[in-house]
């Protein structure tokens, strides 16, 4: 009986175990970065909110790409562009973690947004590029197989490109 595979170790429990292990490493890290922590608690570091623009709440709450685009940019007329490249897997094994990298050769990109068509909240990320190059990479969640649309604002116009990513296991509530 001792060697029977313990069935009570569900996926969820395993996840919890892994998290607690992570927490242990996190504790170690906290000691190492003790100086930063003290600096933060002493109020030496300025809060981010003061320095940066507000988070576009209504755009992220938008349930379709159109409404999100309107609230972000004030318009939804986009032109297809070949100057935007999306680097992503054709098929993602896990919808909770889909690596994606976006780059554009459009001149002077002002901002870059990533939308996942089927997600409950399509707007995934909106990056305001003040001085950075037209590039962004990250890992996103996708509910199921969908088109991923990238919108880049350059020279006052909206340009877009999209790529289809197949997902075998969904990333929301799975």
């Amino acid at each position, binding site marked *: 009986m001792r060697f029977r595979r313990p069935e009570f170790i569900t996926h*969820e429990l395993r996840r919890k175990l892994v998290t607690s292990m*992570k927490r242990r*490493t*996190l504790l170690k*890290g*906290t000691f190492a*970065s003790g100086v*930063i*922590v003290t600096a*933060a608690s002493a109020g030496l*570091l300025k*809060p*981010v*909110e003061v*320095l*940066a*623009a507000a*988070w*576009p709440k209504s755009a*992220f709450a938008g349930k379709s790409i159109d409404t999100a685009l309107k609230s972000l940019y004030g318009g939804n007329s986009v032109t297809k562009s070949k100057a935007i490249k999306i680097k992503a897997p054709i098929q993602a094994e896990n919808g*909770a*973690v*889909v690596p994606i*990298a976006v780059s554009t050769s459009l001149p002077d990109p002002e901002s870059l947004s990533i939308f*996942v068509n089927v*997600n*409950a*909240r399509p*707007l*995934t*990320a*909106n*990056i*305001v*590029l*003040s*001085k*950075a*190059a037209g*590039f*962004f*990479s*990250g*890992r*996103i*969640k*996708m509910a199921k197989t969908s088109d991923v649309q990238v919108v880049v604002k350059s020279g006052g116009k909206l340009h877009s490109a999209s790529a289809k990513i197949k997902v075998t296991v969904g*990333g*929301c*509530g799975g």
Partner: protein
Amino acid sequence: MARKMKIRTRTQQGMIEILTLVNHPMETGLRKDKKTKKIIPAHYIQKMVLYHNGKVAAQANLGIAISEDPLLGFRLPDAKDGDKVKVTWSDNKGESGSIETIVEG
């Protein structure tokens, strides 16, 4: 609580790329706890700001569809070795953090 962060710089296609990782659950607020049937409250990073030599270089506004422990990459065209870069983040529960490093191509 201070969350663990990592930052790395490297050269990619003639530009400095900055990769940052934050140890964060990124809870969407749409998931349900399977046992209690209650919705797990949303807890996710909303803003990440990249500073280059003290000036804002990029601001990423993030939504709930960014994966757990977000790893984000930016590229700076005019950065060089020895420059200071800093990344700060803040989430919807008021938590925040920051990390600084010096560019090494």
